[in-house]
C-alpha cells in the first residue's frame, strides 16, 4: 500500500472538513485496506472516523430504527431489535464474510464495498472501473460471477454485499453529511449502475460521510427470508442471493419486496414484479410467475447464463420460505 497521512477527528463536521479528493474515511477497514494492499486505491490521507459518535442504534419517531454508521456488522446482526423486527437484515449480514470481518466491518462501510470482479482486483490488467478507458476483459473473459442485469459495455461487475440486498428490500434510507450539510438518499438510489462511468459505485460525493442508515418501521418480520447461494457453504461471495419480504393477509399478498444480490452492479429490484405480486395468492405458481417476470430482462454473458436459471429458482425458494416463516400459507 502507499504511504498516507492519518488523522482522527472527534466530530462529524471535523471529519467532513478534513476530507479531500485524495482522502478516504476509514472505519472497519476490511475492504479499504484490502484494496490499498493490492494498490487498487491509493488515498493519500486516511481519516479515521471510529472516534465519531455514530455507534448507536435508536428508535425513530416513525417507529423505525436509526443505525449509526459505525455499528459493527456483528453487533447489528445480533442486536435484539434487528433480530426481532428485521430478521431479513440479520440473516443477510450473517450470510456474509466471516465472524472476524463482521466484528470489524461497519454498517456504513458495508455500503461502500467494491466489486470482487477478478479483473478489478488485479492491478496488472485492464479494468474500466479501476482505470477508466482501459477496457473490460471480463465482458468476454471469466464472467461466471458477473452481472445479468443492468451491465454496460464498460463494466459487468456485481456489487458484493449481502447486507445491502436486505437494506434494498427494506427500503432503508442513507443519511449522509457533507460540506454542504446533511441529506438523505433512498437506498435504491444510493448505488448506481455502471453506465459509462463504472468507476463510480454510488452517489456519494468525495466529501460526504455516511452517518446512519434508517430502517422504516415495516420490517416484514413475519414473512421474510434471505437466501444466499455460493460456491462453498460459507465465507464466499454470492453467486445469487435473494432478499424476499412479504406482508400477508391470510393467503393474500398485501405487499412484496424482492431484492437480488450477485446479479448487478447494485442490489437489483423490479418494482413492477413487486407490485404485480400484491394482491396475488401465495402459491408456487404465483412465485414462479413472479420469478419468470423478474428474470425476463436478464442479459447473461458467456459464462453466467446459469445465474438466470439459478436466480429464477432462488426467487421461488426465497418467496416460498418467506411465506412459510410465520407458519401460514
Amino acid at each position, binding site marked *: 500500500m502507499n*504511504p498516507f497521512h492519518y488523522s482522527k477527528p472527534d466530530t462529524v463536521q471535523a471529519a467532513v472538513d478534513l476530507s479531500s479528493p485524495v482522502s478516504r474515511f476509514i472505519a472497519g477497514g476490511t475492504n479499504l485496506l484490502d484494496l490499498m*494492499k493490492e494498490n487498487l486505491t491509493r488515498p493519500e490521507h486516511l481519516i*479515521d472516523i471510529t472516534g465519531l459518535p455514530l455507534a448507536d442504534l435508536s428508535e425513530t419517531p416513525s417507529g423505525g430504527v436509526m443505525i449509526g454508521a459505525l455499528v459493527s456488522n456483528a453487533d447489528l446482526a445480533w442486536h435484539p431489535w434487528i433480530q426481532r423486527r428485521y430478521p431479513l437484515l440479520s440473516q443477510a449480514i450473517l450470510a456474509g464474510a466471516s*465472524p*472476524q*470481518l463482521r*466484528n470489524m466491518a461497519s454498517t456504513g462501510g458495508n455500503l461502500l464495498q467494491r466489486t470482487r470482479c477478478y479483473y478489478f482486483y488485479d492491478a496488472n490488467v485492464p479494468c474500466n472501473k479501476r482505470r477508466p478507458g482501459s477496457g473490460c476483459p471480463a465482458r468476454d473473459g471469466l464472467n461466471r460471477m458477473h452481472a445479468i442485469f443492468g451491465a454496460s459495455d464498460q463494466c459487468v461487475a456485481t456489487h458484493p454485499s449481502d447486507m445491502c440486498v436486505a437494506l434494498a428490500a427494506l427500503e432503508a434510507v442513507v443519511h449522509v453529511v457533507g460540506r454542504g450539510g446533511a441529506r438523505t438518499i433512498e437506498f435504491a438510489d444510493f448505488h448506481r449502475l455502471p453506465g459509462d462511468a463504472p468507476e463510480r459505485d454510488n452517489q456519494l460525493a468525495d466529501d460526504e460521510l455516511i452517518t446512519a442508515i434508517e430502517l422504516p418501521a415495516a420490517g416484514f418480520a413475519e414473512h421474510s427470508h434471505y437466501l444466499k447461494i455460493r460456491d462453498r457453504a460459507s465465507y464466499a461471495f454470492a453467486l445469487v442471493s435473494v432478499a424476499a419480504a412479504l406482508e400477508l393477509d391470510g393467503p393474500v399478498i398485501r405487499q412484496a419486496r424482492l431484492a437480488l444480490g450477485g446479479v448487478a452492479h447494485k442490489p437489483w429490484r423490479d418494482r413492477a414484479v413487486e407490485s404485480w405480486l400484491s394482491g396475488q395468492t401465495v402459491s408456487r405458481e404465483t412465485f414462479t410467475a413472479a420469478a419468470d417476470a423478474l428474470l425476463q430482462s436478464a442479459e447473461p454473458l458467456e459464462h453466467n447464463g446459469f445465474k438466470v436459471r439459478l436466480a429464477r429458482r432462488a426467487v421461488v425458494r426465497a418467496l416460498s420460505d418467506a411465506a412459510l416463516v410465520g407458519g401460514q400459507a
Partner: protein
Amino acid sequence: MSATLSETTQASFVRHPIRLTLNGQARELQVLPWTTLLDLLREQLDLVGSKKGCDHGQCGACTVLRDGKRINACLTLAVMCDGAELTTIEGLASADQLHPMQQAFIKHDAFQCGYCTPGQICSAVGLANEGRAQTKGQISELMSGNLCRCGAYNNIRDAIEEALPLCQQQGGDQ
C-alpha cells in the same frame, strides 16, 4: 526525508504514539500509519504467533482478540488500536496453565502444520466469548472464517465442542 517526497508523503512517515494493553501488559508504541496490527506484532514486537496467510482477511490465520472480540489483524491498522486491549496466541495461556482451548486442540489433534492454528484458537476463544454456538453445525459455520489447508476441520470442531463449556465457565477469557 528526501526532498523528492511530497509533503503528504512526508507526513505519512511520521510515527504516531499509541497505548495498548497487549497480552495483559500495558505498552506504549510508536507506529507508522500504514503498519497493520499484524505487521506490528510480527515485525516490530516479534510476536510471530499471529500468522500471515493471505494478508487480505481471507484466511483467518491472523485472528487476534481485540477487547475480547476476534478480528483479522491483517486488516487492522495498528494506529487505530490506540487504547485497545489485545490478546494474541502468546497471551492465552497463563504462566503455568494452557488455555482450555489450547489443551483441547492438542488432545484432538486439531492441527497438522500448525500455521493456521493460532488463528483457529484465538477465533475459537472469540467464539466462546460470543456465546452463540451450541451445536456442531453452528461451530462449523462460525469457524468458517479460519481456513485450514491441512484439513483438520473435524478435529477442530471436536476440540471446540469440548472446550466451549470450559471456556464459558472461565467467565469468558478475553
